[in-house]
């Protein structure tokens, strides 16, 4: 019974050449990003990478230094925050401590002069959506962290905003509650149809929730894509390492007719894909593409092979996880579905992977800090 507004439809967000400088510090440097209507977009990156700055710019809490942000083709650079009709869920919830849960959720409707009966109906309906209908008359301080978070969510969506921004909303909660609320947020996104922008530094959370992920690093967007694209086809070493587990191999390399050949510890290692970009390159390996064998003869045909010492061997039930250290100190992680026998730490072993699983990337030096 929300007759005060038509059912929310997600708005498109168009970020064009946006910069935000604090003095000489470039918090955000010439960023472009198109977010589709109704999309769930995550901003992923380490702290200080510019993801929260971008969120604050969309919300209108800070002013642009340069560039333009459009909401459904309408430039919002000069629209004050309270007229943008964008819902925001804050990291520490920012619930009004002097108002009950019901009053907190009713607040945005009051600002829009929604008549009392419609307001109360909308508050009830929204609290039911986040399963807090029995807590309407409590004060925020009487609720647990997870409950406060759901009140913040209810408050941000009760006025059917076309865009919902969330700034690490689950950051302060424990893992189990976080996983439960991730599913809740995903369900609410499907029900509302609004555009969601979700800031997080947790790559797993971003993978679970998002249609697409924008990976931020040092005030720039490194890559935008679906979780699968970012995982299997990272464009930069930073993205490859930030999303999922990985091992990085460095070595002298030559081009050999559309393929790259590395020499690591005197052994040739091939990458099927041609090298992207200029300069030095590295090979990025995903652990599930790598197998570990006690005997070199067990490795599959045509695979790249390197020998080393097992430095970690974990039995996970569903599979095994190895870390093999090759001469020179590089550690290669491997995850295998099954093994006849668990190799022991200290054992000599051969790591093997197919050339097409070598992800070839320009060396941006980010491996050193990871």
């Amino acid at each position, binding site marked *: 019974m929300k007759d005060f507004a038509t059912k929310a439809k997600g708005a498109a967000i168009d970020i064009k050449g946006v910069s935000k400088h604090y003095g000489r510090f470039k918090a955000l440097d010439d960023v472009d990003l198109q977010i589709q209507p109704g999309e769930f977009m995550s901003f992923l990156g380490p702290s200080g990478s510019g993801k929260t700055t971008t969120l604050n710019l969309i919300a209108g*809490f800070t002013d642009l230094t340069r560039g333009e942000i459009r909401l459904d083709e309408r430039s919002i650079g000069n629209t004050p925050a*309270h007229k943008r009709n964008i819902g925001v869920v804050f990291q520490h919830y920012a619930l009004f401590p002097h108002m009950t849960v019901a009053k907190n959720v009713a607040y*945005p409707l009051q600002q829009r002069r929604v008549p009392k009966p419609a307001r109360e109906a909308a508050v009830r309906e929204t609290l039911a959506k986040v399963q807090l209908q029995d807590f309407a008359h409590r004060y925020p301080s009487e609720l647990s962290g997870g409950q406060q978070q759901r009140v913040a969510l209810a408050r941000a969506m009760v006025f059917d905003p076309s865009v919902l921004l969330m700034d690490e909303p689950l950051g302060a909660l424990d893992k189990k509650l976080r996983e439960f609320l991730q599913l809740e947020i995903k369900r609410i996104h499907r029900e509302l149809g609004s555009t969601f922008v979700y800031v997080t530094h947790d790559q797993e959370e971003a993978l679970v929730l998002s249609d697409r992920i924008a990976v931020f690093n040092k005030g720039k967007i490194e890559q935008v894509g679906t979780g699968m694209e970012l995982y299997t086809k990272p464009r930069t070493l930073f993205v490859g390492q930030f999303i999922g587990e990985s091992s990085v191999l460095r070595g002298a390399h030559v081009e050999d007719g559309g393929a790259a050949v590395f020499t690591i510890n005197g052994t040739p290692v091939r990458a099927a894909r041609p090298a992207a970009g200029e300069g030095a390159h590295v090979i990025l390996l995903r652990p599930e593409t790598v197998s570990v064998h006690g005997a070199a003869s067990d490795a599959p045909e045509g695979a790249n092979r390197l020998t080393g010492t097992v430095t970690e061997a974990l039995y996970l039930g569903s599979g095994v996880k190895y870390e093999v250290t090759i001469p020179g100190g590089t550690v290669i992680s491997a995850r295998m579905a099954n093994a006849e026998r668990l190799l022991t730490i200290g054992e000599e072993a051969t790591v093997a992977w197919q050339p097409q699983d070598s992800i070839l990337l320009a060396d941006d030096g980010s491996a050193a800090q990871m």
Partner: protein
Amino acid sequence: MSNSNTKPDGAARLGWAGVRRHPLLLVLPALVLLILIMAVPLITIIARSFIDPVPGLGNYSWFFSHKLNLIVLWRTFVISFWVTISCVLVAYPYAFAMSVAGPRLRLILVLCVLVPFWVSGVVRTLAWVIILQDTGVINQFVIWLGFDKLSLIRTQLGVTIGMTQVLLPFMVMPLFAVMRGIDLRLIEAAKSLGSHPVKAFFQVYLPLSLPGVFAGATIVFILALGFYITPLLLGGPSSTMLSTLVQQQVMSLLNWGRGGAMGVILLVATFGFLALASPFMRRKYDISGGSK
């Protein structure tokens, strides 16, 4: 207590074991001191107001039958009220600036409040005499502008200005303490929910800061009721406050009973005021509630 190890003799009860069992014993010395320096004089004042010079309610009937006394009592409350209001109006933006300022600016702002506070009240009041007098800085400026000179000294306005300045720290400090605990993201949250910044202030920030306002206002009001030096130096006959009357009765006329009665009346009136104010000071919520 049925434990056989417990020694019921007095020595053990007052020893460390006794203190551990009754931790309130630790405040006993302070309590004795407080009774000696606070309760005994207070009881003496109350008692003498009823028995000096003769037993009975004579001192009180004298007070309430003389119109001047009632006018001064009323004026004491009116001046204290205006001092409290002016303190709130000056201290609120000041404390807000303190709560949002960076560490260096905050230190400067704190010092600006506290340094005058460390200077004797008499000295500060005398400074106000120089500023407010008919040939003082303000009047020189007003005359230079071409207006008639203002009557600032020996008026209620002058008393109010001087007392506001003297009492300001008592307003700024509790306000600052409360404001520092208010999460400014709440204002941004209110804006994102469609509230104009001015409305957001009145609906979110102001209610959260009210406990500080009430705490400061109560302290200022009660201190103002008993002010002596400032109204004496800055005021005239038309701005005498109750403490001046008490001084006259006790020091000039040696009428201890009447002075005591006036003290008791002021005390009772203060309690009455506190009783009126206390419902506003209670909070149903925890200020840090939504922003742990």
